[in-house]
C-alpha cells in the first residue's frame, strides 16, 4: 500500500537488498538505521515519517515475497504505523500519551545512539591491539611465592600465660558452683567407707559432714542427701534404717553383710 511512496531508486534498491538477506540484519532498529542512510542527512534531521513509510514498505515487500519476518520486525511495523498516524493527524487534545513528535524524537535518538555505538565499536576494533600491533613479553620469568611466617606475641599474652601457670591449681573442670548443696553422690562417697563399722543404732544426723550442720540451708541439703544415701545403702543391703514413730529421729546401723 505504501509502495508508491518509495520513490527513490536507492531506497528501493536498499529495501530489496534488505529483503534478500534479512537474516543478516540485527533487528528492526538496524533495518531502520540502514534505511535512514538513504536519506543522507544528519540523523537528527531525519524525516521519521519518510523512514516509517520505507520500513512499512520493506515489511510489505517481505510479506509479498513470503519471507518469514521475526516478530520484532512486525511489532516495529505496527508501532511505526501508529507513529505515522500520529504524525499525520492533527493532535487530539483529549488524547493521552506522548505526541507523535515526542515519539519521533525518541526514535531519532535511538537511531543516533545506535549509529554512534557502531562507529565507536569500529574505532575500538581498529585500535592498536595486543597480540596484533603491540606485544607483551615473550619470555616471562616465573615468580615463586615464598610464604614467610612471622610469630607474634604481646606482653599481655606473656603475662596471661604466666598467670595461667601460676594459678594452675585453681583450675578445674567446669562445674556449677553450688556451695550449699551436698549431693547424694557425695554422701554415698563419704558413708560407704564407714557404714560397715557402725554396729549400733545411731541418729543419721550424726553422719552429716563436718561443717554442714550449722547453717540451716546447708543442713537441709546435707540431711536430704545423707538420708537418700542411706536409703541407697539399705537397698544395697549394707545398712538398716529404723524410725520409732512419725517425726522421731531416724536411726541407722551397718549390716556388714553377715545376714546375707
Amino acid at each position: 500500500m505504501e509502495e508508491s511512496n518509495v520513490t527513490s531508486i536507492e531506497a528501493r534498491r536498499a529495501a530489496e537488498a534488505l529483503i534478500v538477506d534479512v537474516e543478516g540484519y540485527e533487528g528492526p532498529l538496524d533495518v531502520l538505521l540502514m534505511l535512514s542512510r538513504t536519506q543522507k542527512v544528519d540523523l537528527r534531521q531525519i524525516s521519521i515519517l519518510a523512514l516509517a513509510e520505507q520500513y512499512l514498505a520493506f515489511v510489505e515487500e517481505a510479506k509479498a515475497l513470503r519471507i518469514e519476518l521475526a516478530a520484532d520486525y512486525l511489532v516495529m511495523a505496527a508501532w511505526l504505523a501508529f507513529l505515522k498516524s500520529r504524525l499525520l493527524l492533527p493532535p487530539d487534545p483529549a488524547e493521552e500519551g506522548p505526541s507523535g513528535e515526542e515519539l519521533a524524537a525518541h526514535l531519532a535518538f535511538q537511531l543516533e545512539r545506535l549509529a554512534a555505538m557502531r562507529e565507536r565499536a569500529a574505532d575500538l576494533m581498529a585500535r592498536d591491539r595486543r597480540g596484533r600491533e603491540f606485544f607483551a613479553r615473550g619470555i616471562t620469568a616465573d615468580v615463586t611465592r615464598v610464604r614467610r611466617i612471622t610469630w607474634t606475641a604481646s606482653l599481655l599474652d606473656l603475662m596471661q600465660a604466666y598467670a595461667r601457670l601460676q594459678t594452675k591449681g585453681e583450675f578445674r573442670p567446669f562445674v556449677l558452683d553450688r556451695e550449699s548443696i551436698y549431693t547424694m553422690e557425695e554422701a554415698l562417697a563419704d558413708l560407704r567407707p564407714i557404714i560397715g563399722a557402725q554396729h549400733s543404732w545411731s541418729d543419721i544426723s550424726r553422719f552429716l559432714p563436718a561443717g554442714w550442720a550449722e547453717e540451716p540451708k546447708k543442713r537441709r541439703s546435707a540431711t536430704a542427701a545423707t538420708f537418700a544415701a542411706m536409703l541407697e545403702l539399705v537397698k544395697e543391703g549394707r545398712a538398716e534404717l529404723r524410725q520409732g514413730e512419725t517425726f522421731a529421729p531416724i536411726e541407722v546401723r551397718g549390716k556388714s553383710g553377715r545376714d546375707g
Partner: protein
Amino acid sequence: MAEREQSLFEAPPMGEQERMVEAMLFASAEPLTIQQMIGRMPHGSEPAEAVQHLRRRYEGRGVQVVRVGEAWAIRTAPDLGFLMREEVVEQKKLSRAAIETLAIIAYHQPVTRAEIEEIRGVSVSRGTIDQLLELDWIRLGRRKMTPGRPVTFVVTPAFLDHFGLETPRDLPGLRELRAAGLLENRPPPGTEAEEGPQADDSQGDMFGEEAEDGPES
C-alpha cells in the same frame, strides 16, 4: 610512611629501584600493580615513582612502559608490530553483535542486559555475553539498585590491556558522545506517563547512578 622512617634499612636509591621495576616489568607478561611491586621490592621502596622514571626512559624506544588501569606493563611500540608477525596470535573473529555489545558495555558501563538490548533494539544472545566473558574483556559489575536488582556488566583490565587503553576514560570519542547526550539512557516517551511518579523516581536514580559510575567518573 611512619613505617618507612622507622625502618632500620634505607630504601635502595631511586636508580636502583628503577632497575628493579624494569626487571619485574620485563619478566611479566601481565601488568603489575604498584602493590605487587611493593610486595617484592625491599622495604621502603617507592615503585610508583620509579615507574615514572622508567616510563620516561623508554619514551621512543622499541618497547614502552604503559599504564593499564591500576597496573603497569611493558609493551612493544605499536609501529613495530610488523616485526612480530610470528608472535601474532590468531584471534577468533568476533561477531558484529559481540563487537557492538562490547562497545556498549565499554561506553555505558555499568550496564544491564536490558539496557544493551534497548540500545541495540534486539535481544542479546547468551553466547555473545559468554564470548566476551571468556575473553575476559567484560565481567559482572555490581547489581543495579532497580527492581529485580539486575546484574550489570563492566569492562576488565584485560580489555584495557588488549586495546591499549590506560583507563576507561580514554575510550575514543567518549567526551563527544557524552556531550551529545548519547550516553544517557532516555526512557521511551510514554513509559513515564504510564508508570507514574514512583517509577520515575527509581529510573531517575538509575540514570543518576549511571552518570556517576560511567567511564568518565
